[in-house]
């Protein structure tokens, strides 16, 4: 379950988003996406209007999970980056703080080398933010979710799955 915890993390989140937008501009990427390892989208930067985001997030996480297992089969702990090269668009995927997947979609106007360098740089910064967030989450209580909230959500469920 992924749950927003409101203001507490907003400052970190704002910094993460700023860094992603900067990365997107620097390497002229089409879009940058942050996804958790269970396949849930965290945030995006750039233009994602052409993209089916839930499917992209799910497949990226599955892709990463599958290749982690491939790594395991050859005695590696993890492949920390993946690269899928297309004729017009390519995808570069890397792992941050062992928990979060950063996917960059770019065109042939950008070189893989530049993407690699810039992603490595921004990953280090993001790791700092995420490590802080993960540390803060420990023991955090989601106070916003009460009986009334659950009741309302349940009636939404009833009407959706009629």
């Amino acid at each position, binding site marked *: *379950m*992924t*749950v*927003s*915890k*409101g203001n507490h*993390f*907003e400052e*970190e*989140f*704002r910094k993460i*988003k700023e860094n992603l937008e900067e990365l997107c501009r620097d390497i002229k990427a089409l879009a940058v996406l942050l996804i*958790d*390892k*269970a*396949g*849930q*989208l*965290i*945030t995006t930067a750039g233009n994602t209007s052409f993209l*089916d985001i*839930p*499917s992209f997030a*799910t*497949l990226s996480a*599955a892709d990463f*999970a*599958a290749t982690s*297992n491939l790594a395991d089969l050859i005695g590696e702990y993890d492949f920390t980056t993946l690269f899928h090269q297309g004729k017009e668009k390519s995808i570069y995927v890397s792992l941050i703080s062992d*928990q*979060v997947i950063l996917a960059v979609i770019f065109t042939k106007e950008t070189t893989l080398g530049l993407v690699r360098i810039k992603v490595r740089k921004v990953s280090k910064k993001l790791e700092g933010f995420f490590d802080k*967030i993960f540390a803060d*989450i420990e023991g955090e209580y*989601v106070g*916003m*979710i*009460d*009986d*009334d*909230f*659950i009741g*309302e*959500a*349940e009636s*939404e*469920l*009833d009407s*959706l*799955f*009629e």
Partner: protein
Amino acid sequence: MSLINYSSKEINCKIVYYGPGLGGKTTNIKYVYSKVNPESRGKLMSLDTELDRTLFFDFLPVNLGKVRGFTLHFHLYTVPGQVYYNASRKLILKGTDGLIFVADSQIERFEDNIESLENLKENLAEYGVKLGDIPLTMQYNKRDLPNIVSIEELEEVLNPRRVFFSEGVAIQGIGVFEPLKEVSKKALRRLK
């Protein structure tokens, strides 16, 4: 622990259909897709083999809309049921918030149900999770067929905790929404 969507006030809930091969997991998710308002659902994605058997997973995002400022998303997954796709199954289980076990009621598939349930426990154990820790509902599918095991016997063997179950004919949509609704509610209640 899954990661949190900090800024956009979102709750994402991952529900996984588990069970033996050809038990009707994909049929369930396809029925949900066909019945949910198109505005509330995304694309149904299937990663199949050429013979229409699930290779990796099926995936359907469903949006519940906003509840007091929070946007609720339910992501429905199926796992491939065939025994040799265990690596895929294990991957899909990661970060699961709720499980629907789709059992095949046919007498000749009885053992397969037990084997699949054991496999589920083993795979969860690798993530350090017990079956009892995760919201679970059961669907005893294919109740329209003639050669089926009685509900009492299925309950006795597959459902010792006596969690919610439905009698399903997934292909006709019978007993599809009930276990989904129940497990989704259980998953929501765990938020507290």
